[in-house]
């Protein structure tokens, strides 16, 4: 059975998945005594946010939003149960009650009123304890130190891991769910590394289901505990991140940790014919090649290593042919401390450079000879010799030669995507090309 069929049984369509999420939010709000008008308002605002996040994701990938996109978006949001927590702070002022009583009370519209009773320190202490418990048991607030410093991608992966546990009706989150989460997240270094080594989400899913048959956890528990092994992996990942000099916890660090934990994830990786050592080497290689582009993607300013004074003659620059187009990497990230890459391109193919989005770098184009047609969104611009254009990252564009062959100078800031050119010249087959491009954040 292929993946989409097995998913379709449970989540028929993208919009149905969104509706399901909104219903869960609605339920949580109802429980905390929120009125119907307000619930409608909240759902409408949330729906706009989900659709816009989804549209953004689709724009980045150039494809229609898939169910996996929806899962990734929903995983990045506050979980539905956090909406029923909207009241406790106000409720807590009606202190001195025990847990079940509080729950009963919260069914009414008690949340708003500020009643007296009970010493303040008491509710405060209860409230703090309650908040701590929630931070530890759910992924929502990420208040626990183990969850701090996680990159957005890491959080998304964790949310997806939780989804996988639910989908398999397991009442825990283990290393196998985490591995699936890392794979399904799709854009982090962990996913890139594993895909490159030939381990994809679909295969891992099947293997996970084979190793750990679907559970019978009735209903959907909102709070899924982490297994001791996964907890250990997250702790180790923090240590690894520190050792690598990172001040964040990324998917790459968790992958490096998980391969050394004797759990189901490691088993899945082994069953794919991969050794921990292979995964470690490839991960470290990907960390190297992603930096500083990945740092920029994490929202951190790249810290260019000061490049020494540099000089080389034209004869030192090799030409790389891809189809009938030719590329010269005048200067790459290694030469510029990662600040920029300068690439000279001769476009002879009538298909130009194809349609693409660079998600990690801004692209500046300066025409040296001939002329090109540049399509950006609805606009088409003719760039002649000497003309200049800048295409901000995330903007879909196409470049065709209108007077072939055209020779252009491309500046990519920061550097990173120039490495793709070397890989593309070696890649064969549309799928290999697409995957290579994706690794460099170039979506076609």
């Amino acid at each position, binding site marked *: 059975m292929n993946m989409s069929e097995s998913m379709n049984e449970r989540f028929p369509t993208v919009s149905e998945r969104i509706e399901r999420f909104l219903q869960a939010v609605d339920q949580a709000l109802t429980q905390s005594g929120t009125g119907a008008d307000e619930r409608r308002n909240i759902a409408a605002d949330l729906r706009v946010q989900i659709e816009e996040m989804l549209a953004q994701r689709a724009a980045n990938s150039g494809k229609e939003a898939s169910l996996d996109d929806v899962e990734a978006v929903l995983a990045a949001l506050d979980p539905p149960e956090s909406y029923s927590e909207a009241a406790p*702070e106000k409720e807590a002022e009606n202190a001195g009650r025990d847990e079940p009583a509080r729950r009963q009370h919260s069914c009414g519209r008690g949340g708003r009123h500020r009643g007296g009773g009970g010493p303040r320190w008491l509710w405060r202490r209860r409230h703090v304890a309650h908040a701590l418990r929630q931070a530890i048991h759910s992924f929502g607030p990420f208040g626990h130190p183990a969850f701090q410093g996680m990159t957005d991608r890491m959080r998304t992966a964790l949310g997806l891991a939780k989804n996988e546990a639910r989908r398999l009706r397991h009442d825990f989150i283990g290393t196998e769910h985490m591995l699936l989460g890392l794979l399904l997240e799709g854009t982090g270094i962990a996913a890139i590394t594993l895909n490159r080594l030939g381990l994809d989400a679909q295969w891992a899913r099947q293997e996970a289901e084979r190793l750990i048959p679907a559970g019978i956890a009735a209903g959907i528990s909102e709070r899924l505990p982490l297994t001791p092994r996964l907890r250990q992996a997250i702790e180790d990942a923090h240590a690894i991140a520190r050792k690598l000099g990172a001040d964040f916890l990324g998917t790459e660090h968790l992958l490096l940790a998980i391969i050394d934990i004797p759990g189901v994830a490691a088993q899945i990786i082994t069953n794919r014919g991969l050794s921990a050592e292979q995964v470690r080497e490839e991960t470290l290689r990907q960390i190297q090649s992603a930096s500083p582009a990945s740092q920029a993607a994490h929202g951190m300013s790249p810290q260019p290593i000061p490049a020494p004074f540099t000089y080389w003659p034209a004869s030192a620059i090799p030409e790389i042919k891809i189809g009938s187009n030719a590329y010269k990497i005048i200067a790459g990230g290694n030469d510029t401390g990662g600040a920029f890459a300068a690439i000279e391109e001769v476009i002879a193919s009538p298909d130009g450079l194809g349609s693409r989005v660079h998600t990690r770098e801004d692209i500046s184009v300066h025409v040296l000879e001939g002329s090109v047609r540049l399509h950006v969104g609805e606009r088409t611009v003719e760039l002649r010799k000497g003309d200049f254009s800048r295409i901000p990252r995330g903007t879909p564009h196409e470049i065709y030669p209108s007077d072939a062959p055209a020779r252009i100078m491309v500046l990519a800031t920061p550097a990173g995507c120039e490495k793709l050119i070397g890989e593309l010249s070696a890649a064969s087959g549309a799928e290999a090309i697409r995957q290579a491009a994706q690794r460099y954040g170039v979506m076609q």
Partner: protein
Amino acid sequence: MRKGLIELCVMAALKDGEAYGYQILQRLSRAQALTISESAVYPILARLAAEGMVKVRVGPSPNGPPRRYYCLTRAGDERLAEMAQHWRQTRKAVDLFFAGE
């Protein structure tokens, strides 16, 4: 306490004109210390609307369902001024308290 602060911030985000929910969230999420997320912001917006502090206008969106723009009503303006005043006093008091230590 934190909830009140978020309410203040939500209203302050509308001080200079209308904005839709996700936009307000994006503005507020820049203040990282407050860790403001949608499960806090949207319920507050809905309540402010129910209390007549903000009003809603529906406008088109380039991608997705129509956006719902919020703006402060006159009562909202007054409430914001009051809350801002109260906040300044509280902050001053707390600062003094720390300075005295």
